[in-house]
């Protein structure tokens, strides 16, 4: 790495949805580069082991903070806690998200209002509240990084995914709008669009779920998020899709 690459050593990074999946992998990946992480999730019981794993790994320090990303109060306290623990908020990775509010696939016609609203609350409004909470500290430091996790479903809708897809389209719009508002002030805002990742989110589809054949691991996304945070500060990547690498054909070398 050249010296242009941003060092994450000693940086303070908030990660929502950090109890599992992409959020947990991102926490481990950036902590391995020396960043301190405030790992945030609704599920305190599953969050504690992630913080313990980070702290046992000997990189940056992790502090667990149980919070609901749809609560204005919780998100404000999240920012306060990061400042109190680490003295700064250098980056936010907003990874909290759900696929469905109840088990099983539903068409839009079958979708109860409450279920639709729940998905949009967590995925879109939760991203808004987490972003808004960290902005004052970043704007006053004239420096910061925000990465919002959208999805390939943020570019293309699919049957049975109306709420999820709508929320992830929304995350891209929110990210682009915020980028125009604050990038001139040193706060870099990017979104990441994972294709199929092998996380617990698939269980939310119940037995009806057809898991894709090829999937990324959460660790792949941890690596890519690290790359985005380490990018030289004059560049940003636009709504990047990250997908499983195509399966390689079995090669049989012709005999001479």
């Amino acid at each position, binding site marked *: 790495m050249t010296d242009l690459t941003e060092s994450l050593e000693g940086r303070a990074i908030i990660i929502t949805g950090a109890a599992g999946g992409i959020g947990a992998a991102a926490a481990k990946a950036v902590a391995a580069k020396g960043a301190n992480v405030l790992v945030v999730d609704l599920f305190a019981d599953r969050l504690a082991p992630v913080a313990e794993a980070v702290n046992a790994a000997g990189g940056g320090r992790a502090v667990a903070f149980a919070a609901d990303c749809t609560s204005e109060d919780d998100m404000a306290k999240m920012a306060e806690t990061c400042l109190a623990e680490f003295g700064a908020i250098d980056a936010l990775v907003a990874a909290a998200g759900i696929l469905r509010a109840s088990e099983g696939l539903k068409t839009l016609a079958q979708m109860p209002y409450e279920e639709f609203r729940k998905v949009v609350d967590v995925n879109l409004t939760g991203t808004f509240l987490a972003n808004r909470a960290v902005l004052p500290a970043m704007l006053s430091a004239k420096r910061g990084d925000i990465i919002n996790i959208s999805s390939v479903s943020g570019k293309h809708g699919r049957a049975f995914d109306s709420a999820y897809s709508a929320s992830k389209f929304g995350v891209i719009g929110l990210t682009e709008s915020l980028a125009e508002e604050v990038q*001139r002030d040193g706060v870099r805002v990017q979104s990441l669009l994972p294709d199929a990742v092998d996380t617990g989110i698939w269980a939310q589809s119940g037995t009806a779920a057809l898991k894709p054949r090829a999937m990324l691991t959460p660790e792949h996304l941890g690596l890519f998020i690290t790359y985005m945070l380490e*990018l*030289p500060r004059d560049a940003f990547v636009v709504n990047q899709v990250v997908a499983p690498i*195509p399966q390689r054909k079995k090669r049989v070398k012709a005999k001479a």
Partner: protein
Amino acid sequence: MSFEDEVALVTGATSGIGRTIALELARRGATVVGVGRDPARLAALKAELAAISDANHAAIAADVASEADMERVKAALAERGGVEVCVASAVAKIPGFPPRTKDLSLADWNTQIDVNLNGVFLANKICIDMMLEQGDGDIVNIASSTTPDGLKGTPMAPAYCASKFAISAYSKTIAAELAEEGIRVHAFHPGAIDTPLIANTSLGMAYGGKMSPESVAVALVGLIELGREMGIPEPFFLPVPQPRAAPATASEDTK
């Protein structure tokens, strides 16, 4: 180092991002075969590469639009045992102020299509056989985010935009052809970069900032490395806009 024992071809290697990508690949362990046209700049590139490592780097004078010239480049790659990375970065610069499309000569149009598009095809073509033989390889074609909103038309850059749109489409085609053979194809779409190509043209002004060629090289070479583990389709990189300059009246006051 991530590109240790690998051979990397870089066209357009004597200036702009071709040069910084060549140097970044060398820093990360690659043996670089750089292609350019200007003998003095080629000599300078060779010296810069030699200062980074004592690998068997080459700086070759060749026209990327000439099949015969590119066959010579292919021989240089073969001498070094093959090629793992192909970066097609050469682009034609038409001197003078960019004309309106109605005033663009066919000769200037053809020069840009020859170098920007046909040059990419030929650079890829000389590498693909060797990559198929290895069952491995990375091809990176430098397209462009022709506007801050992605691939859209820019006034007074018809041949440039046409060639860059074409690179994007062409790269998708060979990506689909070669994916199962273990060859990864990236069409890299950068926005405005601080290079001679776009100085004083409409291509650079809309972004509110420019990326340094060094930053772009770090971003791109990092992407090639990550791309070996995951699919990263059609990456677009844009400059982070710079703070707006103080109003003109403020600078008047300070005089």
